[in-house]
């Protein structure tokens, strides 16, 4: 009998993850094409229009890169925790907390100059996101409470906080009943860069590059990866796991909070319930595809930004924009499946000597 079995490669395939992600994208496009065909659209036509909307012009690029900002920061937030083997599933909520923090600063300093107000709002956002992450950080570091569940639950809690704010004490009295906070002061808008992109893009790029450099060069970054690969080794090396868990999870939340601040000051002109827009969850996929590496996070974030912009563009012609979400998830599943082959190879296995000869 001839069968196929997985055998571990002696060394992982070089560049394997890049190949896996590309394979995942290919699988996702195929699966998406089937769905589009079933719903009566021409998949080639839809994909070409998506690509054009994402990359076809300077304006298209500015849209793609603008969406890559929250995706990249959320992805980095997840990756920071992930490189120590911790899961921050709460980036979605920390983005909201960041936006609340930024909006609160704008309420306190409505007349401040933009040069002061914008940095103050972004700092407020960093603190907001960090504060929400302190809860799972303390619970995990001091009591060993599973951070996956606590961060997940806090998403739902903070969602209801912002709902309470925009429906209640922060509701815009002139908003004709819409559940939204009042417009932010004009000078709080992030300066534009080109097309739809604003300097949030530069801030995100600086954070990604800065953290990537710091994590790969510093003792702190080394200890982080050491703790991620083996807690025991790290403890023997005299690293305090509790302190590490505390700082890493809080930092992770602060980075996600920054994404919320940039969204608030850059794209939305007021605090609304949907400010996080699924970016925190997409960031988990981004980080996983990037194998928790900051450079990979940036690349995948731009790619996902393009998929989302493409999805919104085809919505106009009656194709559901949810195809973007389907594609993102399918890319991950495809890449996870393909990723198996970076560490394993398919070999023919034989159960009887005669079959081995025949093979």
């Amino acid at each position, binding site marked *: 009998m001839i069968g196929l079995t997985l055998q*571990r490669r002696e060394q992982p395939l070089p560049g394997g993850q890049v190949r896996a992600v590309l394979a995942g994208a290919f699988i996702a496009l195929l699966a998406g094409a089937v*769905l589009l065909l079933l*719903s009566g659209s021409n998949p080639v036509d839809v994909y070409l229009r998506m690509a054009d909307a994402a990359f076809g012009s300077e304006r298209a690029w500015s849209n793609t890169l603008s969406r890559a900002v929250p995706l990249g920061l959320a992805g980095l937030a997840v990756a920071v925790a992930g490189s120590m083997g911790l*899961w921050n*599933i709460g980036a979605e909520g920390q983005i909201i907390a960041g936006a609340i923090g930024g909006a609160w600063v704008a309420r306190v300093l409505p007349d401040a100059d933009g040069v002061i107000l914008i940095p103050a709002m972004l700092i407020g956002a960093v603190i907001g996101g960090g504060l929400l992450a302190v*809860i799972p950080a303390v*619970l995990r570091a001091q*009591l*060993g*409470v*599973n951070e*996956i*569940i*606590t961060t*997940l*639950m*806090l*998403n*739902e*809690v903070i*969602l*209801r*906080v912002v*709902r*309470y704010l925009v*429906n*209640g004490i922060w509701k815009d009295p002139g908003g004709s009943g819409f559940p939204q906070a009042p417009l932010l002061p004009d000078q709080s808008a992030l300066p534009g860069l080109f097309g739809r992109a604003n300097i949030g893009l530069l801030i995100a790029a600086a954070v990604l590059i800065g953290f990537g450099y710091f994590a790969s060069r510093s003792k702190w970054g080394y200890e982080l990866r050491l703790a991620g690969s083996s807690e025991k080794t790290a403890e023997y090396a005299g690293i305090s796991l509790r302190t590490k868990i505390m700082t890493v999870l809080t930092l992770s939340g602060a980075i996600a909070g920054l994404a919320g601040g940039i969204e608030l000051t850059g794209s939305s002109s007021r605090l609304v319930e949907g400010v996080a827009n*699924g970016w925190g*969850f*997409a960031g*988990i*996929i981004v980080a*996983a595809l990037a194998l928790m590496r900051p450079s990979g996070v940036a690349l995948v974030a731009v790619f996902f930004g393009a998929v989302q912009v493409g999805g919104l563009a085809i919505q106009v012609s009656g194709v*559901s924009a*949810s*195809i*973007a*979400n*389907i594609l*993102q*998830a*399918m890319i*991950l*599943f495809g890449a*996870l*499946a393909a*990723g*198996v082959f970076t560490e394993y190879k398919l070999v023919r296995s034989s159960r009887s000597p005669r079959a081995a000869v025949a093979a």
Partner: protein
Amino acid sequence: MNEVTLVGLMLYLAALGELIAEKAGVLNLGVEGMMAVGGVAAFWSGTEFGNPLIGLLIAGIAGGLLALVHGLVAVVMGADQVVSGLALTILGLGMSAFLGQDYVSLPAVPQFGALPLGPLKDLRIVGPIVFNQSWLAWVAVGLGISTWFVLERTRVGLGLRAVGESAATADAAGQSVVVTRVAAVVAGGVLAGFGGAYLTLNLAKGWTEGVTAGRGWIAVALVIFGAWRPGRTAVGALLFGGLLALEPRLQTFGVEISPILISMLPYVITIGVLTAFSIQARHRPSAAPAAIGRAYRREER
């Protein structure tokens, strides 16, 4: 008061599914997506065929098929369960929005009807809470009891729990880890699909994008609240169901707290319960299945 039981048992169906998967050692954070897909499948087929039973079956198949993706990726291939589960939620929400775009806000035609229990349903208080429920409510209760029975009193359940506690030991004893885990995940998906059917046909009475509104996360929370036990999970489901069902009405009882803040309670309570478990776990074994979240590859044991 009828709605407390309705919401509670809808949550219970999904939570029971998650409990079965977790007992086998597989965390599935895709409940929200599986419920959404089950919900749209039930709405479409139930309306198309004019029969809620067909809607329920199709919803179960849809939820099970989606769960199979998690089974293949996270169990067979051994990818990370957290990432795979969350991607499943994103996939399920996307698929349901895509497939359901023509059904948005149409009225649901069939509903799961009430069992004819005659005068019992006219009893004060107990009547509407217990005896004026649809037949699916009784199915949910039956599924809870049979899950408990299978897990605690049969060889199949013993094997499933063994795989969730120590996959290598179960493997050495001749239990197929992969088959058991995939089966548990798929069973969980079927139950989440049932929960979605209950949601669109009897509670929301229609389909809109995002109709699940975080209820799948409550199902995940309920398993923890229930300490991985079907009975305790049922108590939690009724408690959380009560909070959600009463949320819009508390003000009519003269309660001054915003109903939005009340709706946070299930999640806050879950964090509290999980923290209490972690403190207890210092003195006695944890209630959680020991192998949860960990992929099993035979050559790496």
